[in-house]
């Protein structure tokens, strides 16, 4: 069952002795099932904190996240871990286990969930076929290219049959060609399995290529959001125009 993700009045502040930093300010966002929702902003705008709040890797200071009807702020650690099993995540630096081969990396979430090794391996091989890495099952991450590493991470993310996939700058460490193929893969996954994708990026091209919706984040606040076409064709803020490269209204 695809899930709706709802961020309500989400605020995150980081405190140290003499300073309070507001990373996120009163964020409201609804992602409906099957969306590819892109959140774009400059570095330091709060993108990474925002995406980590969605699966509560960062606890919001105020506000909450709903996954369907489930209020994450009302859950204890154990319940949160259970919810996280249904929210997959991929990262800019792939974050693969370097001492495990590709297949064992893909099987890792299944192993955590207590799936039998034989079943996990069979599922792992299916997933490797989907991401086009069947021949690399026995290879170790150090032997893979960046694109292959991200494909492994995507296969791993799919292993838990999650309905939501969070992408933390998933293509920012990749060259343009590899970026294209990874974005294509994400789009295929979205279409084929109906997985909701929420991605953060600083690259407009990523939004343009695969996203159905976009939100623009600046200094911790969402300044614009909506369907990509409408936001792109009618940007309301300077930051949007800067990001879209349409400063002053001209293309």
């Amino acid at each position, binding site marked *: 069952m695809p899930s709706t993700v709802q961020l309500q009045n989400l605020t995150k502040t980081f405190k140290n002795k003499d300073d309070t930093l507001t990373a996120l300010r009163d964020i409201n966002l609804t992602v409906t099932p099957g969306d590819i929702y892109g959140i774009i902003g400059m570095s330091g705008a709060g993108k990474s904190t925002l995406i980590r709040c969605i*699966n509560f*890797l960062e606890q919001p200071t105020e506000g909450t996240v709903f996954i369907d009807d489930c209020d994450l702020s009302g859950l204890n650690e154990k319940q*949160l*871990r*259970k*919810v*996280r*099993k249904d*929210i*997959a*995540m991929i*990262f800019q*630096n792939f*974050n*693969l*286990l*370097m*001492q*495990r*081969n590709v297949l064992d990396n893909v099987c*890792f*979430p299944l*192993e*955590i*969930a207590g799936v039998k090794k034989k079943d996990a391996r069979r599922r792992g091989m299916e997933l490797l076929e989907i991401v086009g890495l069947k021949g690399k099952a026995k290879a*170790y*991450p*150090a*032997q893979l290219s960046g694109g292959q590493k991200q494909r492994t991470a995507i296969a791993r993310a799919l292993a*838990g049959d999650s309905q939501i996939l*969070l992408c933390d700058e998933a293509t920012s460490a990749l060259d343009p060609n590899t970026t294209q193929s990874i974005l294509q893969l994400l789009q295929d996954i979205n279409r084929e399995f109906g997985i909701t994708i929420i991605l953060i990026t600083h690259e407009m091209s990523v939004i343009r290529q695969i996203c159905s919706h976009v939100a623009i984040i600046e200094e911790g606040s969402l300044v614009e959001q909506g369907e990509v076409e409408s936001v792109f064709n009618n940007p309301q803020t300077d930051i949007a125009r800067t990001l879209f490269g349409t400063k002053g209204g001209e293309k």
Partner: protein
Amino acid sequence: MEVKELITMLAEESGSTLYMTLASTVFAYLLGLPLGVALVTTVKGGLTPVPLLNKCLNFIVNIVRSVPFLILLIAIQPFTRLIAGKSYGPTATVVPLVAAAIPFIARMVEASILEVDAGVIEAAQSMGASPLQIIWKVLLPEAKTSLISGATIALATILGYSAMAGIVGGGGLGDVAIRYGYYRYQTDIMIITVILLIVYVQILQAIGTRIARATDKRIRE
């Protein structure tokens, strides 16, 4: 002393040294490994934060680490007698060796685990892994190479410590060096024992390095 007699003695005492070293290392790891893991995970903002416990553990580890082994060896003799029944001989020497090695090993384990990429830990958390699963399936396996290198250093250090125990009749090659070389001025025997100790450390180091390299999957083929 006849050559044959000497060889027999050196072989026997080599066995004692090896026995003390291996037994101490095994026991010290049984306690030092979990302690090292705890030093990492109980820290504020860690996997299982218990800052107060972390401070206590750090304090205790630092205290034991600051006591020179020779002093520790003598200071805990009553404790050694309590555990081993006597305070001399190879088996008794295992007690102070373990006591000295635990905090040392804990620090090395701590350093190895801190090398594990925080991103990988975060990825495991995002999959809903429990702290225990992260320790068993992420921290220890990913730190494996570094842990093996650390264990090699621990073995060589404990071998050296075991030789020091010769001063209180701890047995092994150190005991021989002190009894013959120091008390009886038989420098030749002392030199032989020192050479043997050097050879053993070299062998341990070579084996350790080889295992560490063979099990490391981060190296491109």
